[in-house]
């Protein structure tokens, strides 16, 4: 059926769906859709931009690639994957959305998220807020000193950075050191009371990765590599992921 529609409209450009099918294992089941609508009825992004997951997939299947891909809706789907699990055919719509994001020329992708990825590449912190390693060290030391002083029961608590040979390498979402530094402390307290040997890294400490959401695979890889290298150089045994 879809074939004839494409012919009538004279637009033979059904390549996007084919392209994504090639990347996904089992083609992401993308051509098995029963049009039942289960995905759409359980998707909180349904209705935004007059779009829903079922419609998005149908548009791609019918060769309306441009319209589907360039709908701002691809940035409103949170890629939460709920639709995959409610779909009787386990169709991977979020992967389709992710690849649609990647189709946008980099300069046309929403500015905020592009900036967050660029920030992370600016220095070795990986922080989407552009916080430099020195600033991170300063904040951690400052907050630690404050708590050691104001809460005598935690006067021996530590928050080491680049301490070699510890058991854990801990990462940290950069929202805390930048906007809510006190929120770093709960985990320090727990690790302290449990008697754990851990460290942050001055490089690659930031846990978030917006390049992933920007659908920029090369930058995503680079960001991840910085963290892994630092953990490796310090000889830590276990990478403790908090994200």
């Amino acid at each position: 059926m879809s074939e004839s529609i494409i012919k009538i409209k004279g637009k033979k450009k059904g390549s996007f769906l084919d392209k994504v099918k090639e990347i996904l294992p089992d083609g992401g089941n993308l051509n098995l859709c029963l049009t039942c609508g289960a995905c759409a009825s359980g998707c909180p992004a349904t209705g935004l931009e007059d779009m829903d997951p079922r419609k998005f997939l149908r548009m791609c299947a019918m060769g309306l690639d441009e319209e589907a891909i360039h709908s701002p809706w691809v940035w409103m789907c949170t890629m939460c994957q709920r639709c995959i699990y409610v779909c009787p055919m386990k169709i991977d719509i979020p992967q389709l959305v992710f690849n649609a994001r990647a189709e946008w020329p980099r300069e046309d992708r929403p500015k905020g998220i592009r900036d967050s990825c660029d920030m992370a590449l600016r220095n070795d912190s990986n922080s989407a807020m552009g916080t430099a390693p020195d600033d991170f060290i300063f904040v951690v030391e400052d907050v630690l000193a404050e708590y050691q002083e104001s809460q005598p029961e935690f006067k021996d608590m530590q928050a080491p950075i680049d301490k070699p040979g510890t058991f854990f390498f801990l990462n940290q979402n950069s929202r805390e050191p930048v906007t809510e530094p006190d929120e770093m402390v709960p985990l320090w307290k727990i690790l302290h009371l449990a008697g754990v040997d851990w460290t942050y890294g001055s490089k690659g400490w930031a846990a978030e990765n917006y390049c992933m959401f920007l659908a920029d695979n090369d930058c995503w890889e680079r960001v991840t590599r910085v963290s892994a290298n630092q953990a490796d150089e310090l000889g830590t045994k276990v990478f403790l992921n908090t994200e």
Partner: protein
Amino acid sequence: MNRWYPDALKEFQIVTVFDLLLQYIQEGRIQLDKSIHSVPVAYHDPCNYGRKSLKTFGKAYFEEGRDVTKACCEDVRELNPNRNGAYCCGAGGGAWALPYSEERVFYGRTKARQITESGAKLVVAPCHNCRDQIMKSLNKEYDLGIEVKYLWELVADSLILPKK
């Protein structure tokens, strides 16, 4: 991460905060006081640690977060549907860095309704995006009148200090 680093993974193990907290609680390395959080508490399943983790790493963290929460609080409630069927809070996929904040709030309406229906006064959200979305957006926009804590924040606030 395992997509780029099959080698690195062999060298060092990756552990999540969930595993760690649960282990310390079970081993008795930390002691918790349940009377500190006596209000009804709801546990929110972040997509990242549930569904996404299941698909990427083959392991979902549904029970660990609940077990830790239950070790800290008496009255733990569910936001149905939960676990694999849980609704996203609306702040995933990089939403915090995107210009569509009205859409983000609209998206979160389902989560907000679930929270209201559960009667919870405290919501435990282990993920940064969820915590900010529920605490800073949904709480205000939908008048939920709740407190929101990270999982480790809940644990830290429940700690019993060893008597020296």
